[in-house]
């Protein structure tokens, strides 16, 4: 079985995250770049399956700027057998549509039985890519699973929804997206770090994939303006002079919090 895991490089979730106000994009200099935790969980799912099923091929696919090599090597050190790095200046600030189109083209080029991805990234938080990929690849999509069983020709699992838990399954090939309920990743061990240096890492540009970033026919979302979140204003202090309860209630009503 061939599994492709989508791995996204994001600004450290625990560090300061900033927008570059000129470009409107995340300021990747502001904090350390790391593998998105949900991507690590996706990779762990693929690797545990590969551990138990000889002959499983796990490839990671990353769409990121040139500097993301260390992140990709880490995924290889964890145990992925190969990596595809799609990198192209024209992808800077790519919207969800272009991102999905590019990823789908890379996935099709490599070939797959199963694509595993996180349900939503910690930086962009679009949450649309898995569904878009399934549509573009014309395969079923098992979304937002909190537990997963992969078997020879199918994938199944449970999806928590507001009113309960749904049991879902899909025949392969398919796209599967997971939630943070899945186990965290293994640590890359020293043997893995050494082995990672020798594992194939293919770098592809948009022209390799036959995609035009500024295709006038394609619908694209364009960011027109960007503003930083305003600094937090000073709070309202209520000093109890016997009427604090009333004033608190008034405050909540005024701010539509009651």
């Amino acid at each position, binding site marked *: 079985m061939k599994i492709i895991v989508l791995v996204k490089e994001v600004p*450290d*979730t*625990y*560090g300061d995250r900033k927008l570059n106000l000129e470009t409107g994009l995340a300021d990747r200099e502001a*904090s*350390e770049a*790391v*593998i998105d*935790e949900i991507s*690590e969980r996706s990779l762990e799912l693929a690797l545990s399956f590969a551990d138990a099923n000889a002959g499983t091929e796990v490839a990671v696919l990353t769409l990121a700027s040139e500097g993301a090599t*260390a992140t990709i*090597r*880490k995924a290889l*050190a964890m145990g992925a057998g190969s990596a595809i790095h799609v990198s192209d200046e024209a992808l800077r600030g790519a919207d969800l549509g272009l991102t999905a189109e590019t990823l789908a083209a890379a996935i099709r080029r490599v070939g797959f039985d199963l694509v595993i991805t996180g349900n939503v990234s910690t930086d962009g938080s679009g949450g649309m890519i898995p569904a878009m990929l399934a549509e573009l690849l014309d395969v079923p999509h098992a979304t937002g699973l909190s537990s997963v069983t992969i078997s020879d020709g199918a994938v199944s699992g449970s999806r928590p929804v507001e009113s309960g838990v749904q049991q879902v399954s899909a025949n392969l090939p398919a796209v599967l997206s997971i939630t943070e309920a899945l186990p*965290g*990743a293994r*640590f*890359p*061990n*020293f*043997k893995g*770090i*050494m082995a*990672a*240096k020798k594992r194939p890492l293919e770098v592809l540009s948009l022209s390799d994939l036959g995609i035009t970033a500024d295709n006038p026919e394609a619908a694209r979302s364009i960011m027109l303006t960007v503003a930083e979140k305003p600094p937090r204003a000073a709070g309202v202090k209520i000093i109890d002079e016997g009427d604090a309860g009333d004033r608190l209630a008034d405050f909540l009503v005024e701010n539509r919090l009651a």
Partner: protein
Amino acid sequence: MSVAAGTNTSDLLDLDALLSSGELAVRNSVREFVKDKIRPSIAHWYEDAVFPRELAPALGSLGLLGMHLDGYGCASRSAVEYGLACLELEAGDSGLRTFVSVQGSLAMTAIHSFGSEEQKRSWLPGMATGELIGCFALTEPTAGSDPSAMTTFAQADGHNGSGWVLNGAKRWIGLASIADVAVVWAATNDGVRGFLVPAGTEGFTATPIEPKLSMRASIQCDITLDNVRLGPESLLPAARGLRGPFSCLNEARYGIAWGAMGAARDSYEAALAYSLERLQFGKPLAGYQLTQEKLVNMVLEIQKGTLLALQLGRRKDAGTLRPEQISMGKLNNVREAIAIAREARTILGGNGITLDYSPLRHANNLESVRTYEGTDEVHTLILGQHLTGIAAFR
């Protein structure tokens, strides 16, 4: 999972730029391991005097046990990579770095350097995975800095062909009570020799030394050897004289020069973070000149000490490292680390005496670190002898 953001303020000189991407990957992997597996529990292990035995297989699967050795399941990493791993581990706790040193630098190195092929095959792979634990018994109740005064004696056993009978006592032996094998050094009629004593051998008893005010997340033991009968296969064939155990000690001392800087860095980072949050007289402690001087002095020594350790590592990888250079690293870096940990505690005020903060725990641990593998005094005399050509040990 993320990498601790601390290095941006503690790595003023950009020492990271002196490391290869492979070295950084090893460092980051250990740093994440410490963050996930050690930090959340270390205060409780320390308070309850627990050595987390279950961590050994996890350390083994990462490749940390005997990581600088070749073959037999060991990770064959460079000296610099081993040093970086020690630094990150000791930023977690000296007790856990000590376990890795005892297992890898002392016990496994002794077997790897001086053992027979059969001894290597039967012990090293299990020790590399952390399934088996080893200890290294050199120090005695009355022979610390002067191991040549050891009284433990191995008598060739007339009843047992070419076997041996060991009698004596050892003290301050890390992990002995849970070890599967002890490397025991003993005097013989033919000078000091090393022996592999499997756990459970009749006459071998290891008792943890308690209570301790330092290294509480680690185990140190008294060992008694009471007519311990061993077959000829237990002798380490290639070690003769104190040169054998001393070469293992040099391995451990090398790791300590790095490790101490980890404890220092963690203490500094705790103090920096606290001083930025703690308000007194209406402004953060970090805004006071006296605090800034403390923080600056800490960073200066951490950077110098790390650079020193890195130079030792580069020389070790090149095969040119001299024993007096290791003494320089061990003496300087542990001495500075304990001063930094104590200074960091002062910034934390009263809160610094609780286990909620690491500096006092590090300072207490470093009391052991500055004592074992050669005290400040011993390393000073080694360096004094090197400078003057005059041995002042006696």
